[in-house]
């Protein structure tokens, strides 16, 4: 008797709850869609050319570039060779910045992880420093450094390296937090110093994840390095801007640079994702590194 009166009550409560939840979700969805539509409207209104006006022209420029590249396809290998040094410079900017950034982030992360840091009082301020380094877009540092140091690859390298310290420092310290402290305690009990504890106790646990994150950063930094070149920091991006400014009829060199950038990014992505997979899956460490 008791149960029969209760069951409809529970059903009704459940349905009411589900209905309420569904209402909330609907409202959120409507708000979100309205924001999206309104946002596109605003963006469209503030753009120099409208979306609908520009839509028919989207393929004009790629068609021009590809058409000219096709017409003078025999020249492309020569252009590839001509811009190879710039491409190497772009890759080197990314490579050196990733290396320097990862090295600094390695120490920064150890100093900013509770339980591992030799000076626990420095953990909080150091984390704020990493946050700020991560928040500053590379272009800000790069433009200021270009003003101080003149154009060229060094401003871009420093700018990307600083951002890398912030980004990797955060990821590294998250990895550190999951590391077991037992080896560290063991090493401490036999009188190992801080550096020895870290190198022998922590690094073997975290190295695969560190490497995986650093490789991912390298992929990101190649793109950043090409973009920074475009605002004046050397490398292939700078050449791209110059060739673009020559205008119609001379887009074949721009096409060659487009292809170089495209190819480099694809190759680096493939190679790096192959290594990242073997680093994270090969050691039964299937976590966030894999999904990123």
């Amino acid at each position: 008797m008791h149960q029969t009166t209760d069951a409809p009550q529970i059903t009704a409560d459940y349905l009411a709850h589900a209905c309420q939840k569904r209402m909330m979700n609907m409202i959120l969805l409507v708000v979100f869609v309205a924001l999206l539509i309104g946002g596109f409207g605003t963006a469209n209104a503030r753009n120099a050319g409208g979306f609908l006006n520009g839509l028919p022209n989207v393929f004009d420029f790629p068609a021009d570039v590809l058409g000219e590249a096709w017409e003078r396809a025999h020249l492309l290998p020569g252009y590839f060779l001509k811009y190879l040094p710039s491409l190497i410079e772009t890759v080197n900017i990314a490579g050196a910045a990733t290396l320097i950034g990862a090295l600094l982030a390695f120490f920064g992360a150890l100093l900013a992880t509770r339980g591992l840091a030799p000076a626990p009082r420095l953990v909080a301020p150091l984390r704020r420093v990493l946050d700020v380094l991560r928040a500053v877009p590379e272009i800000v540092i790069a433009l200021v450094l270009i003003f101080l140091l003149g154009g060229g690859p060094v401003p871009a390298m420093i700018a990307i390296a600083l951002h890398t310290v912030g980004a990797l420092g955060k990821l590294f310290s998250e990895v550190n937090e999951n590391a077991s402290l037992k080896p560290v305690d063991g090493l401490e009990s036999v009188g190992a110093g801080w550096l020895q504890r870290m190198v022998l106790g922590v690094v073997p646990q975290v190295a695969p994840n560190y490497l995986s994150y650093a490789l991912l950063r390298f992929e990101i930094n190649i793109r950043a390095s090409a973009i920074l070149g475009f605002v004046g920091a050397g490398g292939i991006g700078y050449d791209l801007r110059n060739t673009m400014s020559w205008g119609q009829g001379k887009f074949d060199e721009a096409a060659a640079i487009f292809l170089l950038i495209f190819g480099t990014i694809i190759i680096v992505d493939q190679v790096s994702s192959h290594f990242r997979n073997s680093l994270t899956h090969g050691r039964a460490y299937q976590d966030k590194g894999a999904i990123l």
Partner: protein
Amino acid sequence: MTDLTASSSTTRQTARRSFRRKRIAGLTAPVLILAYLTYVFVAFDVAGLGERINVSNMKTLVADSYSYKTHVARDNRNGEMEIAIEGERKGRYAPGQAPSWVILGETTRVELGNGHVVELGPEVTYDVPGYGLITATPGRSGVNATLPEGPLPEWINASKNRLAVTTDAGRLTITRNRAEVFRYFNGWELFFFTLDSPYYGMSPLDLLRSGDYGAIWQDFWTNKMWRHGDVAWALVETVLMAFLGTFGAAMIALPLGFLAAKNFSPLGGLRFAARRLFDFLRGVDGLIWTIVLSRAFGPGPLTGSLAILLTDTGTFGKIFSEALENVDDKQIEGIASTGAAPVQRYRFGVIPQITPVLLSQVLYYLESNTRSATIIGAITGGGIGLLLTQAIITQKDWEEVSYYIVLIILMVVAMDTISGWLRSKLISGTEAGH
């Protein structure tokens, strides 16, 4: 017994060998890194950096970011005075008006503080405490400067047609046609109101009391020097680019992700096509998309949004399809056993499983795209990135550059906080990918 010692000695040998191998490997890595960095540093000519570094630019940058200067200039040909903050038209005092430390007259008296006094007239004098009186009568024949006896100090730069005196209090430059004094002040000039506003120089309390909040806001918002309204719009545009790009990409990538996932897409050809599309979108990269799209749509936030949207459709498609491939079949089977139609199976069997991963990824990219939008804005011409590059190109408004940098950092930190808050709110309790 002998067996044991023999085996232990071989074990020891293997251990030793493995240790040696490890040690060599441990040494080669740093050596390789060092070699690469050396090569890059030589290629980039880092050693020559010391000569290339522009110290005077650095001084201007640092000084400008926390201080400003007011120019007081006299045209020596007609005796007209001009007083302007940072020497800009927008900061010019109306004729006959002057700050309290300038006394206009036949000869204008400029007090630089600490006893430094400059008088601008047909004869220009600068009384430097502890050094003496510098006089000059600029005219056709040159600046005709007379300096106190003794060797020329290094803070005075004198030639026939030009005299420049730089002291802690300020700076005096005299040429044949013009005598100009700079006085430096701390802070950002005219940040709230420009000189033409009636509210310039009023204290916050007086402003509160005056009651004309609409007019006060109007004057602040349309401040010609700092353009607060434009800057606010630029920030909104940048956030808008990130928002539209990220969520637009997520909405397009979700159905495409199903096409590219092994367990949901029965057609191998379609799967292959979807995957190559993702690779293509990601490989072409935001830079090239920005260039291509700005040709069609012109500069502005829409171009930036679409560039982010295209790049991230590729990224999200890849992430989503990987997440979909890791979906647990048991839930889908359970839903199917209740007689659910395919759409319902997706809605209740698949979506709840992948939502945490997708949302956390999308929100992570929202923050990262705010930074990208700043950069894309600098290239395509929209948002705070454009203002920043413009301010840097003028090479003199470094206080504005610092202002924009502070705003950009605050904007990114705010987006980071919001996306982190949303992440914890929407995905609370569930294990979330990064």
